[in-house]
């Protein structure tokens, strides 16, 4: 049951082979047994989950089930969910019970899905290893001495360890794709604006995008069908006709032109990762695709550009956490300035503070043009690189992350080394393009390797098609860590 696809689960529920309550309880039991060690969830609330499961069972009984009705989905703790503790991995929100639902949560609720719990994450989604969480690091289910990646590390670990049927993540610079790669699961960051950001706690507004994480591309398509959609409460949400992201899954890949950016296969790429990715490309050729060499000349600037723009937006987005209205407030203070300083000094962790400082600096009078404006200009060049590349190819492939999962604590003292683990994913966010990661083998220490697939704007269906055809021909995605 825990290895079943969403389609299979839905069929089981429809056939009354299992009820949503039973399925939910099965996962709750697994969480109770395995989560104390893995730390993938920050909050489980069986009462709320089972209430939703009972509603789902009634809906199924009434013959009004949709594709995800009754299926237990884990939600990254960045999404506000009514009645749920919503911490964003921070002490700052250690006591924040959301009074409202994020749009994405509302979409799942409307579809009759069960909210199984809130998954662990890097604090305010700032991190690539899940080690910045106030609630402690998540362990990689493939090797518990290693990181799961981040910031959606709790989600990736929960999917890998089969602690949920599927889950959500968010991706600002690689936060879905990198942990998906490091945990051997599939994850998709849609085109910016496809999923509403309403109720998703903001890190860097112009880059943040929600997306699904699951065991397969087919599951991702079903999840995205629920998550996507215009929302008038998010001014950057795109008003487009609804589409069925699963519509092209079965298409053969004959004639698909795959672009391989030379910059993604250069120095810095782990040998084991490179080999697994090349093997995947070979597989694609067998499936009928052709390969073209392309160049993304400005992609080398994406990490520095990102570490100007994302902290700039974050420094402002996180100003609302001031200890005045909700969340953490220092127990003792002498005046207003002291209230702010102490609440923020005690409520935020080191990485968050580092980024607030960087962001405040680059927006400061006298530095703004040199950093923020310049970074915006380079951002446009990076987007231009992609649009040039898509004149030569239909889809771009490469590694998701330069290495497989590293050891817990290994990069803790060196933020720049940590930032470089997103070197292949960040440019996609800067351009607003859709990107995904699917398992494509194993590297050193038998840790999973992720293949990154980048599409043109709104090409999610084509990317899912490419991923699904690969998953029909290979079984990397159905491998699960042992001993769980």
């Amino acid at each position, binding site marked *: 049951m825990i290895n079943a696809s969403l389609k299979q689960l839905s069929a089981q529920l429809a056939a009354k082979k299992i009820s949503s309550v039973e399925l939910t309880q099965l996962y709750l039991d697994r969480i109770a047994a395995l989560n104390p060690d893995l730390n993938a969830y920050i909050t489980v609330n069986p009462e709320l989950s089972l209430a939703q499961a009972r509603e789902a069972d009634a809906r199924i009984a009434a013959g009004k089930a949709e594709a995800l009705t009754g299926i237990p989905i884990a939600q990254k703790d960045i999404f506000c969910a009514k009645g749920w503790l919503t911490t*964003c991995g921070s002490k700052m929100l250690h006591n924040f019970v959301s009074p409202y639902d994020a749009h994405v949560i509302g979409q799942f609720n409307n579809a009759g899905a069960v909210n199984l719990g809130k998954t662990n994450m890097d604090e305010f989604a700032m991190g690539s290893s899940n080690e910045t969480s106030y609630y402690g690091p998540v362990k990689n289910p493939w090797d518990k001495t290693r990181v799961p990646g981040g910031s959606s590390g709790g989600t990736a670990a929960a999917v890998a360890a089969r602690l949920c049927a599927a889950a959500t993540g968010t991706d600002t610079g690689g936060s879905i794709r990198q942990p998906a790669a490091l945990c051997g699961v599939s994850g998709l960051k849609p085109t910016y604006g496809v999923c509403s950001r309403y109720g998703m706690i903001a890190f860097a507004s112009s880059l943040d995008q929600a997306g699904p994480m699951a065991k397969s591309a087919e599951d991702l398509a079903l999840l995205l069908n629920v998550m996507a959609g215009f929302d*008038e409460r998010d001014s950057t949400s795109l008003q487009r006709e609804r589409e069925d992201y699963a519509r092209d899954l079965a298409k053969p890949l004959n004639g698909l032109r795959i672009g391989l950016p030379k910059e993604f296969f250069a120095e810095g790429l782990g040998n084991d990762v490179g080999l697994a990715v090349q093997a995947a490309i070979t597989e694609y050729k067998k499936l009928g695709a052709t390969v073209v060499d392309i160049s993304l000349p400005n992609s080398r600037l994406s990490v520095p550009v990102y570490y100007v723009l994302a902290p700039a937006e974050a420094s402002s987005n996180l100003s609302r956490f001031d200890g*005045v*209205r909700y969340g953490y407030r220092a127990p003792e203070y002498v005046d207003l300035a002291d209230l702010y300083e102490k609440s923020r000094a005690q409520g935020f962790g080191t990485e968050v503070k580092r980024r607030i400082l960087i962001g405040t600096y680059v927006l400061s009078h006298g530095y703004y043009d040199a950093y923020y404006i310049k970074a915006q200009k380079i951002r446009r060049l990076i987007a231009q690189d992609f649009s040039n590349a898509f004149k030569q190819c239909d889809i771009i492939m490469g590694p998701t992350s330069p290495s497989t999962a590293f050891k817990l604590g290994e990069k803790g003292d060196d933020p720049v080394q940590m930032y470089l683990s997103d070197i292949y994913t960040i440019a996609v966010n800067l351009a607003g393009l859709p990107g995904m990661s699917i398992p494509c083998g194993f590297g050193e220490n038998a840790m999973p390797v992720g293949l990154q697939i980048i599409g043109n704007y709104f090409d999610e269906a084509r990317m899912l098609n490419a991923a699904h055809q690969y998953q029909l021909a290979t079984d990397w995605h159905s491998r699960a860590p042992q001993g769980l």
Partner: protein
Amino acid sequence: MTWEIVIGLEVHAQLSTSSKIFCGASTAFGAEPNTQADAVSLALPGVLPVLNKGAVERAIRFGLATGAYIAPRSVFARKNYFYPDLPKGYQISQFDLPVVGNGQLVIQVPAQGNSPAYEKTVCLTRAHLEEDAGKSLHEDFHGMTGIDLNRAGTPLLEIVSEPDMRSAAEAVAYAKTLHSLVRWIGICDGNMQEGSFRCDANVSVHKSGTPFGTRREIKNLNSFRFLEQAINYEARWQIETLESGGTIRQATVLFDPDKGETRMMRTKEEAHDYRYFPDPDLLPLEISEEWKERVRATLPELPQARQARYVSELGLSVYDAGILTASREMADFFEAALNEAPGHAKMCANWLIGEISAQLNRDGLDIAQCPITPQQLGGMLKRIADNTISNSGAKEVFRTIWTEGGEADAIIEAKGLKQVSDSGAIEVLVDEIIAANADKVAEYRSGKDKLFGFFVGLAMKASKGKANPAQLNEILKRKLAG
């Protein structure tokens, strides 16, 4: 060389939308604290702003009414600073790309002492959309501060003038004209007590022919009187400081109306670095020609155009036309009354500027609260014009309408105020007076012209005040001539 005062004003006009600029919460004034603070007003984690099109439309109206440039693309920016009544830790405003730029406002500066009234054009640098902050309540909570976020997110149009004004009188005239205009075009209720229209004044002094001096900004002036007092005090203070060898440092100051003084709030060195940057939660604001034209079609005739029309079409003096167009309510009242008594614009203007304004003033009312409707006034004017009532009769009718209500015709009937316009009846009456006062008639005829008034008085008394004065004069004159 004499000192010259240089003034520029920044006015915050609260836009009259029923909901806030970036969310659906109500903007109504006076509700219980925090009852109009929804998730967006509270800046809960994850909420996002959505622009209220009504606020944009009002900005467009303002731009059109001041002949300004309306930017086809403007950008919302975040102004970052911490304050408890600023829930997001930043204010959404517009910075380098405002929605409105380069407007003009023609002001009438009233006569003062020996200097006559004059007209002046003040240039508007820009007008931009932004959200208001909430309120910190320091008085009601001992040792603590209460926060009321009802006002947080209320739409404001910040209207910035060039430093074009040279006296407090000009600044006040500008502020009053602007105040009248925003109400005229229906974008702001202008209620200064409730903070719907607030002025900041940038004041500097210099000697003519030399560069402008260093300015100090007086914050949050919420009446025209305070504006005038604050500028006069500040300019005098700056001149005295300079004349005694001091220098002016750029600063923000507050006006204390009780002491009539300005005092330092913060210097330039202490000013915040607001770290403006484009708000990534909002797309650039795009205003199409088509949208602009749609708004233009709903714009009322503007005060200046109306004033000109009253002069050219109705034959009013520029002065009278100016008073009648000082507010839209006054102008609309005038036109509605005139509609009842067509062709009597001058009489209508005289009554509005004279008797009605005086009564309103005495009762502390404005024209919108006038106890007499334009229809009631027009009904009375019609009866003056067709000689049904004399001026004294009209005053009686007016007093009655003001205090008791009713229509002119009914009052004239009930009080018997209809004047006698039957020339036969008046002739009989005059004949009787001439017969009864032969001695006085003789005196008159021998050249004592002043006695004419005596005969008028007698005749009026005899007619119980109802004789048509013009007719009476004519008949008396003829009969007395013999």
